[in-house]
């Protein structure tokens, strides 16, 4: 039996998406071409744009397709800054590397950066943000929901604080994890730019989108042709984009019910772990959290060994984000919410998806306690400490 609980890393393609992509596989024309073949591709592209923009609550001409979430983040942040002289930018300490490393890069290249602290649950305090705003603040980027711990940020409140201070500061949010798992509406949330990615909602890899509110001016980061308003030049990945459109359509249908179901399974997993394993800590916000995410620190054991043992039992999970597990440092997110090094190293992220079921959660709960106790028997730390 294989149980896949790493949906924040990526998700399996939905059957309907596979079908949509198979159906569009024969449509090969360049969407920019005037002839019939080009038009067929253009139609697919615009149909998908309609679907994705309706999922975000924006109009289709406010949406460009990109190569992935990372690309959307880069185009939004770097593209906007290319058109302004203001040199102060604000983000949080727990952003995904697709945002955080862009800020670090900018920091090294003449920008002044404020990295906002988060509370013990990983939430940004809108008042703290309000206090960081300045006359020369160009842009704020705060994620909608965190990929490692699932905490949902008060995006609307943050937007209100920014607007109270100035109408000119641009507010970007990375909603790659929030999209499909929490209510998304660019207008209600009050954001100027939003990044999303297809492969987190049972769509294909290598396709993303960026909402850019009408009136927000951004300059190209990639230089080339006129595709996607010149902001993402290059012949469009029509098949992937068609798959993205389909993925959004099915994610939006009955989203509330699906998330309730996922939330119930997540809670069952959480309660089961609390009941059967001592010395653990649940990371992330207890309530304002993605319904599919559960991040747990198992005291005195190291994350990678837990993952390897679960993998041997057929269970796929990860430590922190897949992108940072190539490094040796403890997760910047877990350190930012105040975990000590050992607890941060001993954390595991379970992220559920629409295809998980009760039986799978039961199976995980059957295997996990034995694995933790086996690793604790091996650990030099286990004899001394209590869970903090």
């Amino acid at each position: 039996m294989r149980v896949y609980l790493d949906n924040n890393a990526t998700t399996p393609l939905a059957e309907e998406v596979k079908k949509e992509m198979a159906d569009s596989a024969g449509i090969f024309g360049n969407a920019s071409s005037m002839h019939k073949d080009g038009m067929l591709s253009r139609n697919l592209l615009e149909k998908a744009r309609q679907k994705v923009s309706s999922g975000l609550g924006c109009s289709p001409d406010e949406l460009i397709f990109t190569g992935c979430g990372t690309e959307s983040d880069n185009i939004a942040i770097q593209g906007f800054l290319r058109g302004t002289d203001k040199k102060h930018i604000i983000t949080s300490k727990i952003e995904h590397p697709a945002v955080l490393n862009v800020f670090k890069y900018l920091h090294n290249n003449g920008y002044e950066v404020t990295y906002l602290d988060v509370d013990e649950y990983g939430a940004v305090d809108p008042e703290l943000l309000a206090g960081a705003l300045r006359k020369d603040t160009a842009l704020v980027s705060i994620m909608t929901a965190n990929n490692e711990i699932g905490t949902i940020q008060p995006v609307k409140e943050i937007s209100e604080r920014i607007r109270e201070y100035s109408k000119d500061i641009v507010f970007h949010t990375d909603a790659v994890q929030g999209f499909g798992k929490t209510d998304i509406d660019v207008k209600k949330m009050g954001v100027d730019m939003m990044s999303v990615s297809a492969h987190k909602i049972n769509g294909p890899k290598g396709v993303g989108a960026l909402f850019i509110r009408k009136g927000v001016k951004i300059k190209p980061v990639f230089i080339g042709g006129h595709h996607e308003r010149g902001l993402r030049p290059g012949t469009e990945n029509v098949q992937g984009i068609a798959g993205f459109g389909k993925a959004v359509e099915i994610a939006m249908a009955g989203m509330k019910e699906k998330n309730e179901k996922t939330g119930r399974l997540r809670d069952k997993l959480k309660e089961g772990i609390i009941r059967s394993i001592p010395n653990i800590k649940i990371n992330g916000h207890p309530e304002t959290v993605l319904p599919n995410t559960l991040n747990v620190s198992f005291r005195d054991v190291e994350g990678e060994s837990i993952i390897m043992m679960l993998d041997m039992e057929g269970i796929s999970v990860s430590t922190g984000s897949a992108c940072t597990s190539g490094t040796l440092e403890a997760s910047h997110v877990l350190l930012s919410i105040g975990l000590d090094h050992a607890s941060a190293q001993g954390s595991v992220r379970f992220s559920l998806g629409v295809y998980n079921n009760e039986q799978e959660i039961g199976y995980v709960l059957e295997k996990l306690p034995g694995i933790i106790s086996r690793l604790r028997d091996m650990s030099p730390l286990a004899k001394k400490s209590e869970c903090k």
Partner: protein
Amino acid sequence: MEQYSEKVMEHFRNPKNVGEIPDADGVGRVGNPTCGDIMELYIKVDKGIIKDARFKTFGCGAAIASSSMVTELVKGKTLEEAEKISNKAVIEALDGLPPVKRHCSVLAEEALKKAIEDYKNRQKDV
């Protein structure tokens, strides 16, 4: 995740010599400054020969496999021979480690050196 060799997986799945030796003759405890992982190595020495070795490790898969391997390598060796066991020898015995995980085997080498040093210090005291 990194690709580990079959040998590493074998030692991770069934690590040899896990535990403490309550009346050990030497104990080495080291931490890895890069990742914060920790290893403890216990040795039992008789007439200059390492009769038994055990470990406890808080660490990644490579650290656990290296711990298991180093205890296997030192058993039956004289102290002089054991002192010469480097992390390279551990890596070789494990059929290699991924580049980012090579430092994990250093933990094993250092724990062993410390345990031998501890043994020698205890001999001086008596």
